[in-house]
């Protein structure tokens, strides 16, 4: 998985310029329930990864999220 591309897509979801791996998701402005849903959709459509919302809520940083998606990738 191309992590850089994942952060770029995450930035698009959050309506922001850039997301860095060390960014804490909860501190990002656009991180809400719609963003969680959009990440679920992204993981499913682009990476074939089926993730539960609870699993997303448990991660802290953008890097954690990227790792989660990668671990669930088919």
């Amino acid at each position: 998985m191309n992590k850089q591309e994942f952060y770029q897509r995450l930035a698009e979801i959050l309506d922001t310029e850039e997301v860095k791996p060390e960014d804490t998701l909860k501190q990002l402005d656009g991180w809400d329930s719609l963003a969680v849903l959009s990440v679920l959709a992204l993981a499913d459509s682009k990476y074939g990864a089926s993730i539960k919302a609870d699993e997303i809520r448990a991660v802290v940083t953008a890097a954690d999220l990227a790792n989660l998606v990668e671990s669930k990738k088919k």
Partner: protein
Amino acid sequence: MNFKFRGKRISGMAVVLPERELSFLEEMKNFNFPEARSLKLKEVMGYNKRRVVEPGCCVSDLAVHGLQQLFDRGLLKKEEIDAILLVTQTADHFMPSTSSLIQGRLGLKQDMLCLDLNLACAGFVIGLMQAFMLLEQESVKKVVLINGDVLSRKASPKDRNIYPLIGDAVSITVVERDASNATIHANLHMDGTRAETLIIPAGGMRMPSTPETAKLEDVGDNNLLAKDHVFMDGSAVFNFVQTEVPPMIESLLATAGTTVEHIDYFLCHQPNRFMLQKLADKMKIPYEKMPNNVVENYGNTGSATIPMVIALNFQERVQREKMRVCMAGFGGGLAWASMLMELGAMDFNTTIEYKQKS
């Protein structure tokens, strides 16, 4: 499970809408929620307007009004109705069945069947399957399938997850025999282990309503709801739909020996625009073949959404010509079902407004 039906058609449809219309952006002002986010939700999810009943209005009120209009306009005759199948999760009473109440209020004949079916958003497709099975009996010539809920009455006004999305409506579908109509294919799946994904915990025999079950609890993000209210695990529903619905439809098309290109329209249950677009993306179906505009006009109305997609987008066309459509419903139970059929050349397709008498 796969099904096949022959010689059946939908001969008429009506949608009954309560008159009261609410605006999403206006309603969101009641929540402690930034307006920019509301605008984004409106844009992505399609939340805009919805129709809800006035306090005290029941499913039977909408259904009786709709059927009476059809009788008055000569589109349906009382004595022709051999069965009423009512799909609802918001019955007037525990007992008797609401379909019996409808029969009684309209003075329909006794020589008929009244049956309530407790089904959620897959209830239009499953209801049609039941209607087709009844029509295998010689004595049954016309079945009236009624789908509807007044779920807004069970939604917590302080739950942003569900309150601003729910609409109330009833649809009436007349089903009869027609030897010339093409074979209808259908399939369905159920998973009761995920029953708690969409549930009204209290008010039944397991947990009768008490002052305790009416207490609002914080379920996170400042959303408050009681055990008496409808609960939906939104992201679990999203995952369920993305995971289960595409293989179901692919299997249906394969069984029928057809492909996406040969289907005119995919008429799906309407939870929100986002979910339907993701579903279309996943199945590589062009957006224009899968209408998603019910929610922005009326809200999510449960098992009545498929008839509403038809009325909203194809009201003239289904009275004029036939289309080859794939319908799919998915939701509480959990249950998901799909059906491939020729839809059209209907005797009527109409939208009826319901004005509550005060």
